[in-house]
């Protein structure tokens, strides 16, 4: 609870900084403040509590995921220092929006009431709509913002409709009542229809097949830093929320719901990966790769022994690799019009360190050992195999192989071609974020227990 208040307060302070003309120290200040909030958040670990008539429930699930979101936001704020060089007067707005976005994300994992859940998802989404359209003179950014807004509000409408149906069935928004209703034998059918509508809305936010059509265009058009936000923070948040809702409502779901999840998960991986193979634009490629990762994350819901620890680990691994990759993309495409793969040619020669960071991030996403992505996949495989879905594991394995194909396209471009652009300067924040993301990735890759033991 304190965390949520502190995050919101920090967002307001960022706006006040602009009035006081303290723009120069805004990013360092926010980073320090976010680290402070991370500490504040960690105090709640192992202490379950509920606030405001069960509007907010703080438990280990919410604390650990909020911690992940805070770390990701810190990275994203740090990367913003150089990204908004051309519009310095807007820096505080963008930093504040990201921090408000974080408050939405925190609400989405710590809600105890569907009203709070809806508030959270709207705060998150509206922040993203603004960020997507934040390059106001760029037509692609405008298109991206508009597209995302239209599709996103449609999804919000569906979620709202779902919440209404659930309310109609059980007469409450409270999660405790919902959990009881989910296990009771006689509950109106609307309850389940409402649940399905909620799932559709969240699958849209996660960008899982068949609700993924917005992702490539929006990712490509949005400013690179916004794409980073969407593909790491927003995706993991939506997935964690989906997990929480699914866990609460899956009391006595029929066997078919598992089949539906298996199909969606398999389709997401396959469609995302096959489309990614054909992309020449890195952001678009990562959008499709994100769709396939959404499919992998859906695997956490399959089986009788679903565990939030696995999702936390997968989300962390995926997000750190994403942050590492995007910090390099931001560096490479700083002054360029587009993010095509050709721009990465020769990076291995002109900037070996960042090429190394991008390589490790991609290897981690591909699931190659010693990087976190490997253990993430391993845990998923092990969980799904235990529940007897061998076919899905085989599909996942085949997809991991396909994924190597396009991740390596980028690696090949970096190491086998000659550089086309002269790049000078070593922007401190980009290097710092890249280094820290790489180290964190390796640390949790070598010692996965550090993360999985947080949620037993």
């Amino acid at each position, binding site marked *: 609870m304190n965390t949520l208040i502190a995050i919101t307060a920090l967002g307001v302070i960022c706006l006040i900084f602009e009035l006081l003309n303290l723009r120069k120290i805004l990013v360092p200040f926010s980073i320090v403040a976010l680290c402070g909030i991370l500490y504040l958040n960690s105090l709640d670990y192992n202490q379950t509590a509920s606030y405001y008539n069960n509007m907010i429930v703080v438990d280990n699930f919410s604390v650990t995921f909020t911690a992940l979101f805070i770390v990701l936001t810190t990275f994203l704020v740090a990367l913003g220092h150089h990204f908004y060089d051309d519009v310095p007067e807007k820096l505080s707005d963008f930093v504040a929006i990201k921090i408000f976005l974080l408050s939405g994300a925190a609400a989405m994992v710590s809600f105890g009431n569907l009203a709070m859940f809806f508030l959270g998802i709207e705060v998150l989404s509206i922040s993203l709509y603004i960020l997507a359209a934040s390059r106001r003179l760029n037509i692609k950014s405008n298109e991206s913002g508009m597209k995302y807004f239209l599709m996103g509000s449609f999804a919000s409408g569906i979620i709202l409709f779902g919440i209404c149906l659930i309310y109609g069935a059980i007469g409450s928004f409270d999660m405790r009542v919902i959990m009881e209703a989910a296990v009771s034998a006689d509950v109106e059918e609307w309850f389940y229809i409402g649940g399905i509508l909620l799932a559709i809305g969240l699958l849209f936010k996660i960008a899982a097949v068949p609700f993924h059509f917005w992702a490539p265009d929006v990712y490509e058009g949005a400013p690179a830093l916004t794409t980073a936000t969407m593909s790491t923070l927003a995706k993991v948040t939506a997935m964690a929320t989906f997990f929480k809702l699914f866990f609460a409502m899956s009391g006595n779901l029929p066997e078919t719901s598992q089949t539906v999840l298996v199909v969606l998960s398999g389709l997401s991986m396959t469609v995302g990966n096959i489309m990614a193979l054909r992309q020449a634009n890195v952001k678009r490629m990562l959008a499709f790769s994100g769709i396939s990762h959404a499919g992998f994350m859906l695997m956490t819901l399959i089986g009788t022994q679903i565990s939030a*620890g696995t999702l936390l680990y997968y989300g962390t691994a995926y997000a750190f690799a994403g942050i590492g990759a995007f910090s390099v993309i931001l560096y490479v495409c700083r002054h360029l019009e587009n993010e095509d793969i050709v721009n990465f040619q020769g990076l*291995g020669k002109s900037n070996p360190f960042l090429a190394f960071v991008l390589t490790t991030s991609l*290897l981690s996403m591909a699931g*190659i*050992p*010693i990087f976190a992505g*490997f253990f993430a996949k*391993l*845990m998923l*495989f*092990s969980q799904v*195999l*235990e529940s007897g879905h061998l076919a899905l*594991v*085989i599909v996942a*394995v085949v997809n*991991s*192989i396909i994924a*190597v*194909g396009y991740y*390596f396209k980028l690696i*090949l471009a970096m*190491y*086998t071609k000659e550089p086309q652009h002269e790049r000078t300067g070593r922007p401190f924040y980009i290097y710092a974020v890249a280094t820290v993301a790489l180290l964190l990735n390796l640390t949790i890759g070598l*010692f*996965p*227990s550090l993360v*999985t*033991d947080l949620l*037993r």
Partner: protein
Amino acid sequence: MEVIYLLILLLVGAGLTYFSVDKAASRVALLISTVAFGYSLYLVSLHYGGQLPENIHFDWISKPSIGFDLRLDGLALLMLVLTTTLLPLIVASGIETKFANAKSLYALVLLMAFAMCGTFVASNGLLYYIFWEVALIPIYFIALIWGSGDAEERKKQVVKFFIYTFAGSLFMLVGFVYLYGKAGSLLLTDLYKLELSYDEQLLVFGGFFLAYAIKIPLIPFHTWQANVYQKAPAMGTMLLSGIMLKMGLYSVIRWQIPISPDASKELMPYLVWIGIAGVIYGSIVALRQRDVKKLLAYSSLAHVGLIAAGFYGLTADGITSGIIQMFGHGLVVVGVFFAVEVIERRYQTRAISELGGIRAQAVKFASAFLIVTLASVALPGTVNFVGEFGLLFSLSTQNVWFSVIGGLTIVLGAYYMLKMYQQVMLGEANKKPFADLSVTESLIFGALAAVIFFFGIYPQPINDLIAPAVNEIIAQISTN
């Protein structure tokens, strides 16, 4: 504990090499790999003295419960010695060549050696899998960046190689995940104790088989091999053929056969025929090659096919001889690929048609090349003779046709290797000048020849070293 120092030495050595300068990198790497060689001999002496603890365990991951487990028995030790013997020679082979960004190259070579040593000593499935995969990354970059030939074509081949091997490994990973579900542990000894039904064994066997058949490679999973051997730089080819494919063979007897003995027994004839098919196919294709390196790649395919056949024959003799032949093949294949490198350095070509008449100008090189060529065709007195003869003998105890057809490897091998030698080295003196071996080059050939002949005449130390491990494997096959 001791073996961990060797791993640390190689890993830290890779780091040191990377942070040295390009000019000194090869020497730093040579120093480290020589120390590693010396250290592994020290490990052997400890092993004989009985002072070397066989199993090492550290806690690592709590859930799933995976420990950092290493096991250094005679078999693992032999593979370790093979790796560290070849490593200084491989590094030294590059000392006279100028590479762009040499420090990265040598760092990758040491990193790969680290991962391969790890693969040989790991006794926990997951740890083993991690080392196995990590070994793949350095060789990918070595072949990609420092390889020869047309860049686009090389890119295609190297990526194909990576995707192929990665695909195979993933199925092995699924096998391990499945085993973990059954045993609740991935410790080698726990997996040995596991009593799986035949169908379950078949599943595990299949997953492992894809990984190993691609790595070794067995027919029909060999298509990546010749092209990658040809495109990779000499050092990469030596690492691949000398050590890396032994990872696959070693894993067959350490992991695959003992964990799924019933499936292995049931499939034995088919697997032996697959190995022998590789012998025939490799030999016949080698006959028609115009590029020396490609010819040697196919000849290597034939030799490892025979080793695989010996392992899958499931006899104690076959496994013992297969291990000896792994050792011998590692030495010889590094020798022949180094000979090609020597030629290519001087003539910038590997096409057989453009070569010939070298002997007249370089007597030392001609005799060195002849020694490794003869060793490759299993001349009595070389360790390869001990290996191949034992393999054929063991196969004949199972089914005489195995050894009759498998024996063609020696006949055909002698034919194409000697024909190649004749075309490349003999004939009228070549007009282009050919400088004879330098001191470094002579030392490399000398060291290889010494080891090949020593163990050819006196293979008993290897036999003694691996006997307990072989007995364990055989016991595992016969009890279940």
